[in-house]
């Protein structure tokens, strides 16, 4: 009798948690759904009340406007290219370096590892980096400024290295007996086996590249990415609206609606990608937490 009472009281906790989680889900998702709804809603109607998750007067005019009048195409392409190139070069370089650092018989193993790990704790800071990139190397407004400074993340190298160290060493030795050199071993044996951890690294780097805004803000304002365009619109608050264009479009455009449409364009790729790679990144993160 007493037992069952306790049992039922304990089960109440499950239902309490259920309610709390539903509230948390609403708090997390409502703003996104709201933004989505505003971006598809008639701008004038939006001015009445901005609290809704289903467009009251559906329209594509906000999207038509940002792509036709706001010239979002080239920032969008730049963001995609930056993300793809950054992730591809990042994955290859990280994997290569991680393999070399996993080789305990490599003469410079310790020195090189130390050199890389130190930079995780001490960095020159913003001003010296800025001066290096802009004045010494002259990379200002050059596409390379998006790729080169962040080519390798030491954290990712450690992640991949621990993964490689967990692979059976016999595979490498067998290949060596067959006459394969270190590069071949890396390319033919290590790389294919590292697919899961490299997927994690690719996701980290790609998300970082897609989302980064400070690099454009500091070094390449003439090569605006999607995030930077969104920032600019947020700062100016009112967009320069060509009166003729607005007339032609029949529907007037409001800054909020346009901003929300760009916000959605900047968010959608992330939302599409992240649930699929979830298992990789959570796995990758905990590996990094346990080892090293």
């Amino acid at each position, binding site marked *: 009798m007493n037992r069952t009472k306790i049992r039922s*009281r304990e089960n109440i906790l*499950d239902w309490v*948690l*259920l309610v709390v*989680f539903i509230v948390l*889900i609403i708090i*997390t*998702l409502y*703003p*996104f759904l*709201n*933004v989505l709804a505003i971006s598809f809603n008639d701008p004038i109607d939006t001015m009445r*009340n*901005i*609290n809704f998750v289903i467009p009251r007067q559906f329209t594509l005019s906000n999207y038509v406007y940002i792509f036709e009048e706001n010239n979002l195409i080239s920032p969008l392409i730049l963001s995609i290219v930056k993300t793809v190139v950054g992730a591809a070069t990042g994955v290859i370089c990280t994997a*290569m*370096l991680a393999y*070399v*650092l996993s080789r*305990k*018989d*490599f*003469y*410079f*193993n310790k020195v090189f590892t130390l050199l890389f790990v130190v930079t995780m704790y*001490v*960095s*020159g*800071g*913003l*001003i*010296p*980096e*800025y*001066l*290096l990139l802009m004045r*010494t190397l002259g990379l200002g407004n050059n596409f390379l400024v998006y790729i080169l*400074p962040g080519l*390798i993340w030491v954290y990712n190298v450690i992640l991949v290295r621990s993964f490689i160290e967990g692979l059976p*060493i*016999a595979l490498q030795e067998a290949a060596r007996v067959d006459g394969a*050199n*270190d*590069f071949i071993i890396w390319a033919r044996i290590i790389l294919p086996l590292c697919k899961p951890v490299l997927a994690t690294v690719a996701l980290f780097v790609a998300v970082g590249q897609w*989302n980064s*805004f*400070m690099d454009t803000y500091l070094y390449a304002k003439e090569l605006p990415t999607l*995030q930077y365009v*969104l*920032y600019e619109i947020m700062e100016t608050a009112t967009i320069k609206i060509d009166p003729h264009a607005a007339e032609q479009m029949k529907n007037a455009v409001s800054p*909020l609606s346009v901003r*929300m449409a760009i916000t959605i364009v*900047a*968010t959608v790729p*992330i939302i599409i990608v*992240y649930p699929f790679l*979830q298992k990789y990144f*959570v796995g990758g*993160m905990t590996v990094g937490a*346990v080892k090293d």
Partner: protein
Amino acid sequence: MKANDKPKAIKQKFSWQLMFKQRYLLLMSVPFVIWLIIFKYVPLWGWTMAFQDVRPKTFAVPVWERDFVGFGNFSKAFTDRLFKQTMINTIGTSILGILLGTVCAIIFALMLNEIRFVKFKKVTQTISYLPHFVSWVVIASIAKMVLNDGGMLDTLFNTRMKLMSTNSPVFWVVVCFINVWKEMGWDAIVYLSAMAGIDAGLYEAAKVDGAGRLKRIWHITLPGIKPTIVVLLIMSIGSTLNVGMERQMLLSNGIVQDHAMVLSWFSYLRGIGNSNYGVGTAIGMFQSLVGIALLLIANKIAGLLGESKLI
């Protein structure tokens, strides 16, 4: 052969033969070391600028020909009219962020760990990661829509909360809550994996002894994740002064600027905005060195209290 049967580090003598034998390994790593030296160590060498008077026109001059000013740049920075408020903001935002962030992430992880509806738990977790992967620009855009005067929250409750337009420490709280909203789910992962490592036998034994669920959380789960909490706390104490400029810049506006300014932003403002590279570097260097000192102190205190240490 076992999977983790790695070869031990071998002491080897330098020889050109060995270099030739490892030529592929060298080819596969030396370019990255050169990259590292250019992009990470050259900026460190840039710290010398903190002791010199460096302006755009004297930047091209060799290091030894610039005016040496000793700690002049530091005293210039510390006596700056913005410095005091900047320090208060940095520390205030940071401590509030650490406390709020840690507590919320732990509570969220505990709740996820307790709930028995497995499917529902997975859905909640997946949704909770979402804001972590969204850029700060997008978050700022959404936050301004929600919190600005007459924004979503104001219309929803039909009030004027003035969350984004009160020039007071309220802004710190707003920033910290936005940060919790963005990162809570992600930060909980580490605690969850620590909870997964707790011996299930302990829970069984407690159950037999008649401990309820809340008691089990208090006496088994929390002590079980204490080492993780301590290590993460040490790390976040080490970065007390490193409040990111990006977040502050994006969320603030002209009205709340006084309470949004933090050290990294201040360094940018003086260094690049006012083109006084020496002062800017000095502020950055101060931030870095204090960070390392705080890390070591926190680590030492944790050791004295008998907790697990980071280093």
